[in-house]
């Protein structure tokens, strides 16, 4: 079980990097991607790096061969961007870039791995979403829409693939200390979080560890929130 192979997009920094390090520590093999794989400041005998721009059809097509050879059991759709601005000021380019990177990429990447998982009758597809996708956030109409899309995609795919022992879930972090949230986090936000602190990448990575394991066998089609209690339904 511990020699399962995971593909993690956007694995060079932030939450993705935390996930890669944590999976390696658990004994998994990891294929981590980044737009420029020279950005990786880590090495490990079980870690393989690859260049991939998840927004770019040609880049994803070229990556197909690497994925087929690697034959991952686990996909972590993590690559994502923000391009925040109030709706009145948001351009169509801001909208398209975020939908393409955060949502269309999930479609493209999942396509690459599903056939292999069907053959094995085992698979884990986990996409990193955001509480912004369910609670909304001013300045993030594009980002919220992309993340809500990822959650809904996961539910439908979970229904399609359930009979083949492939689970599909998303993880919705709240405020996690990374480059992406630098400058967004202040004392006011911390006060609103019941657990009185912002999260760290390990808080998210530990949920990933659980979801990729056999222990999570009976969980699919869910969006699991890791936010210190900030958003409660």
């Amino acid at each position: 079980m511990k020699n399962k192979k995971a593909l993690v997009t956007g694995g060079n920094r932030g939450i993705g990097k935390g996930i890669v390090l944590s999976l390696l520590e658990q004994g998994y093999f990891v294929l981590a991607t980044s737009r420029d794989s020279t950005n990786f400041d880590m090495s490990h005998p079980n870690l393989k790096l690859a260049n991939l721009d998840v927004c770019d059809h040609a880049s994803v097509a070229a990556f197909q061969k690497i994925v087929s050879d690697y034959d991952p059991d686990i996909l972590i759709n993590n690559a994502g961007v923000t391009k925040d601005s109030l709706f009145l000021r948001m351009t169509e380019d801001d909208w398209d870039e975020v939908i393409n990177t955060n949502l269309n990429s999930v479609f493209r990447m999942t396509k690459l791995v599903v056939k292999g998982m069907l053959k094995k009758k085992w698979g884990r597809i986990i996409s990193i979403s955001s509480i912004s996708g369910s609670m909304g956030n001013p300045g993030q109409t594009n980002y919220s829409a992309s993340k809500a899309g990822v959650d809904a995609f996961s539910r439908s795919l979970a229904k399609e693939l359930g009979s083949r022992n492939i689970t599909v879930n998303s993880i919705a972090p709240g405020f996690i200390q990374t480059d992406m949230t630098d400058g967004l986090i202040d004392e006011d936000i911390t006060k609103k979080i019941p657990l009185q602190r912002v999260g760290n990448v390990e808080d998210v990575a530990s949920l990933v560890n659980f979801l990729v394991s056999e222990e999570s066998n009976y969980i699919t089609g869910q969006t699991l929130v890791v936010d210190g209690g900030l958003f409660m339904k």
Partner: protein
Amino acid sequence: MSEVLDKVVEIVCNQLSVNKEDVTPDSSFVEDLGADSLDTVELVMAFEEEFGLEIPDDEAENITTIKSAVDWIEKNS
């Protein structure tokens, strides 16, 4: 038995976990052999892979029995 028929039967038995003895040329994947909708897509993918063909979606819909699969493959390879 043609070579294509042999191969198709093998793929179907493998995918649907049925015995060769229970399969006839007229067997319907869904009605006789218990395939679900995902099985039928996987079968078409397996035929494509085995025979190096690309089966268009609208034609794949009509491949519902052993015989229809064999006929399509023999006609197009």
